[in-house]
């Protein structure tokens, strides 16, 4: 008998089969993912998802009997009261008498349920979405560089000395040139002394000569020669900007209901997950405003209650202030997302337009304005009156391709709005 420990074998032997399966079921999985998204809390979006997909695209049909036709026999266990000749009403739903039920892979019409990993889920979720202007415009001017290992070189600075490499070369050279080892010399010297002690002068002389020759050899062949020395080589590669900051601006004045805030939150969360997938490091700045604006932490941003008027421009000013102070554009990609119900203090709208068009947009990679409605969907029909802010922003929009504005009425629309905003192939403002 043989015992083999297979546990260290590579895992995920089925991975490629799984990918094929997902590719096969892509259409179904994708709609299931979107369906799931509608139902779940946005804070959970980042987790894996259990999806149930109809067996349509992934059925493996085989010929089999239709059990509702003809005469069949069943032998089943567990008889308690039946005697020969009893009539049993035909069971519905096929349980019980049917004997063998459909196999798991059988032809059943049931949905097929399985779990997507977080990665798979988000891949599906963000498939064919793309960040506009992913490459920083100012990449050319950027001075940030990374050092990358690029093999070994014979020249360099002592701090980059590669000791293993150097010694490896040294050893190879010593072996090939047959440099005597220290231990050999020691042994020979001892032999000379022993011979002297025994008084065998001739032998001692011969050994001493040998020792001399070897000593000379080891002197001529150095332990480490300059040709052995190797240095680690580094290359300078320009570093793309991999840091992004996301400004979340929200109106928290009394006119914003909880439902509206919830919508806004969902949108921000989606944007956040999306950015996290694209950038190595993402900062999030929360700015809320009533008639004044302040930077707050996430908890306060979403959950604390405020009352007061609405002056949108204060939030934009705050954003500019923070961006200038902490997020220089040569290092950071700046994204802005603003959510509001569209109310604004009458005279402030023109100021907002000036700020947005003149200062905020040139700074940003992308700026999205989402107007949240009351869930009635009225504003989406286009019949109702545009809000102050919507009208104001509409003036800015045509001139800036990286500014987009959308309206959202209820949670189910969040994904499609998000999808529209980031669809591949350019943003339609």
């Amino acid at each position, binding site marked *: 008998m043989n015992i083999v420990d297979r546990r260290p074998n590579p895992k995920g032997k089925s991975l*490629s089969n799984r990918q094929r399966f997902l590719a096969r079921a892509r259409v179904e999985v994708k709609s299931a993912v979107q369906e799931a998204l509608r139902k779940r809390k946005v804070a959970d979006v980042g987790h894996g998802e259990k999806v149930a997909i109809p067996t349509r695209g992934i059925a493996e049909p085989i010929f089999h009997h239709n059990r509702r036709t003809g005469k069949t026999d069943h032998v089943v266990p567990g008889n308690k009261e039946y005697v020969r000749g009893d009539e049993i009403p035909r069971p519905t739903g096929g349980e019980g008498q049917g004997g063998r039920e459909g196999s798991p892979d059988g032809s059943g019409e049931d949905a097929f349920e399985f779990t997507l990993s977080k990665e798979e889920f988000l891949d599906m979720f963000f498939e064919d979405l793309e960040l506009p202007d992913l490459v920083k415009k100012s990449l050319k001017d950027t001075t940030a560089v990374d050092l990358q290992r690029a093999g070994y070189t014979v020249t360099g600075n002592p701090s980059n000395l590669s000791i293993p490499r150097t010694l490896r070369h040294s050893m190879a050279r010593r072996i090939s040139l047959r440099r005597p080892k220290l231990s050999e010399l020691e042994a020979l010297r001892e032999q000379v002394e022993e011979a002297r002690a025994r008084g065998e002068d001739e032998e001692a002389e011969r050994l001493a000569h040998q020792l001399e020759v070897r000593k000379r050899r080891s002197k001529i062949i150095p332990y480490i020669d300059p040709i052995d020395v190797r240095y680690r080589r580094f290359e300078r590669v320009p570093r793309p900007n991999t840091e992004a900051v996301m400004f979340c601006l929200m109106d928290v004045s009394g006119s914003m209901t909880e439902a509206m805030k919830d919508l806004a939150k969902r949108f921000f969360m989606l944007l956040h997950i999306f950015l996290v997938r694209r950038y190595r490091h993402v900062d999030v700045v929360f700015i809320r405003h009533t008639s004044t604006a302040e930077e707050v932490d996430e908890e306060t941003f979403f959950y604390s209650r405020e009352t007061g008027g609405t002056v949108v421009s204060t939030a934009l000013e705050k954003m500019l202030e923070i961006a200038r102070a902490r997020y220089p554009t040569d290092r950071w990609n700046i994204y802005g997302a603003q959510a509001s119900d569209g109310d604004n203090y009458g005279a402030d709208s023109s100021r907002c337009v000036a700020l947005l068009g003149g200062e905020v947009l040139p700074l940003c990679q992308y700026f999205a304005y989402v107007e949240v409605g009351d869930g009635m969907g009225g504003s989406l029909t286009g019949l109702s009156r545009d809000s102050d802010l919507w009208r104001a922003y509409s003036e800015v929009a045509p001139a800036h391709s990286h500014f987009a504005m959308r309206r959202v009425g209820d949670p189910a629309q969040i994904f499609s709005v998000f999808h529209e905003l980031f669809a591949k192939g350019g943003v339609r403002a």
Partner: protein
Amino acid sequence: MLNTRMDAAQLRADMPLFTGPNWDFGSLRRVYEAIEKIAFDDLGLDIYPVQIEVITSEQMLDSYASVGLPLMYRHWSFGKRFAYHETLYRKGLAGLAYEIVINSNPVICYIMEENSMTMQTLVMAHAAVGHNHFFKNNYLFRQWTDAGGILDYLSFARDYVAKCEEKYGLEAVERVLDAAHALKEHGVNRYAHRSKPNLAEERQRMEDRRAHEEATYNDLWRTVPTLDKEDDETAESEKQQEDTRGKLGLPEENLLYFIEKRAPRLEDWQRELIRIVRNVAQYFYPQKQLQMMNEGCATFVHYEIMNRLHDKGLITEGSMLEFLHSHSSVVFQPGFDDPRFSGLNPYALGFAMMSDIKRICEDPTEEDREFFPEIAGGGDPYGVLRHAWANYRDESFILQYLSPAVIRKFRLFHVADDSSKPSLRVDAIHDEVGYRRIRSALSRQYDLSRREPDIQVVDVDLTGDRCLVLAHFVHDGVLLEEKTCRSVLRYAAHLWGYTVKLLEIEAATDKTLKTYESGPEGK
């Protein structure tokens, strides 16, 4: 070497081989050797060499996905199976099997690292010895399964499919495999084919026949009136058709074989892919006919071995209780009205029947003497069982050995389901009149040729529109499920390249009940 070590083990027979739940490679080896000794000496089993492989639960899931084989070509359906099992496992709805055993030479037996030492012992007795003996000795496995070559073949298949994917694209390969998978149940040879006569034998036969004709020539036959001319012609064309069918080997029940050899538009690599699916299906074909016996044999063997280990003091009382707990859940048979019921448990039925054979051999009742005169009281239960394991399959085993005692124990009853009547009728129960009827009905239930639709290639018009005609021979009025039938036919048409027809023909009357037809895509 082995013997000396065993002697040493026997000397301290009152010492258990292990204590506590943890296992290590040393104790696995010791326990296996003790098990093997019992298998050889007490039960007289004959097994392939064993290779035990320790794997993790994740690897076990992987093995599930590739239908229990260590290697498999890539296909999305295996990914689907993996996703399915993984969900069940993660939700805690289903535990994993404790072991998977592969019918190869040497037999490969996977055991999971999570198992306790008692479970490893059970698993080794069950799979490495029980299944192993059955694999090596049952006539169906001997006839159909090349245990020595299967792993090499699978590795060839995997590489070949991968090469095809590289050369012809994933999608093209997938389409062929999908279609072949749909027909794989009908891609097996159910009977060994007559070996092809060689030229010399054929010539000899012709010589013999001519000689016979010359020797028995009688001029009288010439005067017998023949059919008139017209009839002659139709008969002639009929005969010609019959001839073509004969040459094509029709009727042919191995659909995939026929398509592989005769489909007009397939390329060589596509034929080879079909062949691979066919060969894998053929490998599994005996297992489907032997499931109950195979599991019963393994369960019976592990039960005997564990009890003997316990009798010899080689396992502790605690281990024995742990074993009995999992054994009893393995052979648990819920009744038909139990929500857990999902058909007869092959472990339960197999184990019960084999234990009962042992009882009949050793301690028969009057009833047993009447039912089984040749084995009752014979006193050699293992010999009888070894004979049964080697020479029967599920269907014939039940027909031969299902005893009234087992029927009573399971309280089996026979229900006749006639779809034209509003209710089912109980036809037989566990009483004097019912035993034989239940026995033959249950045997029919295990008969693969009744369980699976009887579908054959009956005709093909190679000179005309190249339409392939399949026939489903309907027994007892049981038709095919319509929706899946249409999908499968689409796949068949994809492989065949031209229209495929399927006729549902009532076997008793030759009447065509229903016709399906499917053309290849784009037509």
